[in-house]
């Protein structure tokens, strides 16, 4: 299946609030260790890196390995301290890349 993602990004928050990002990306995460029904090795195809930038700063980074199941789900929380763009980026070992963006508006309490 072509690379595509479901993301749930916070859109509004008050300064200092803890907000959550949830993401689910379609990817086979083929380990490279399996063989097909003819005994031929299925080439490795995995996502190797997931990174999140918030208002220009890198706030989360994750290396993915062949042991991670297909269609990785990643969620985490962070403190909303300023308005800015959220950018989620997945990179695959064959050069494929998927980027999802959203805007987070932070207001004073």
């Amino acid at each position: 299946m072509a690379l595509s993602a479901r993301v749930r990004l916070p859109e509004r928050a008050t300064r200092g609030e803890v907000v959550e990002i949830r993401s689910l990306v379609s990817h086979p995460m083929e380990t490279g260790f399996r063989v097909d029904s003819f005994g031929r090795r299925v080439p490795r195809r995995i996502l190797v890196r997931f990174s999140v930038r918030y208002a220009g700063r890198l706030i989360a980074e994750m290396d993915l390995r062949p042991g991670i199941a297909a269609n990785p789900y990643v969620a985490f929380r962070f403190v909303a301290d300023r308005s800015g763009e959220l950018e989620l980026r997945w990179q695959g070992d064959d050069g494929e890349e998927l980027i999802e963006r959203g805007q987070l508006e932070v207001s004073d309490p």
Partner: protein
Amino acid sequence: MIRSVVMLLPLLLAGIAHAEPSSDARVSGYHGLGDELRALQDDDFANPGMLWVDRGLRAWETPAGAEGRSCRDCHGNPESLRGLAARLPRWNAEMERLEDLDGLLRSCISERQRAAPPEFESDALLALATLVAHQSRGLPLAVDVDGPARAAFEAGRASFQRRRGQLDLSCADCHDRYAGARLRGETISAGMINGFPLYRLTWETLGSRQRMIRWCNQAVRAEPFEPDSADALALELYLAWRARGLALESPAIRR
């Protein structure tokens, strides 16, 4: 003493016969999942099957084929097909054969869009099938097995009881007689097909009812049915009837 044992014997025998789960005990495979997997299925964001629903929705809107028509142009919103998946497979009088969800989608694509229909078990077909089945979530399975579908239904019922493969097992051997018992690390399911198309962790992807039937046949080392054949559809019809009344769950999560 002897007399009481003799008196107990018929009761014991009745107890053993009664302990065999009958096919009337219809329990969704959902209840065989642990708490975490049930939570995953119930979470419409994190449920990986929803990736196919998303993709199905994109395909729904996209014009295709010689007619340049999208699904929406004829059917409107996907919600208009609520209930359809719960009634499949069904008898197609014109083609004089059964059709299931995948077959129906393929003929709709080739006849109304005049486009090349996606292959069985391709992500493109699974996406549309999951989108359509998802519209019927919560509705009870209710296939029509009377009238012209009756012969196929009886063939499916017989197929369910027929021993096959190198392991010489019938579907009923496991899914009727030993449903709920343990087979090494796994609990044997009751073989209810109300969750399809579903996301199976063993496959790390989504699959159709027919893929599951094929997987089962291979597990008992039997020759799988030809795809979209009368044998395959007859068994699917019987299985859908067997799960009648259970709420459709697509996209369900199963191990």
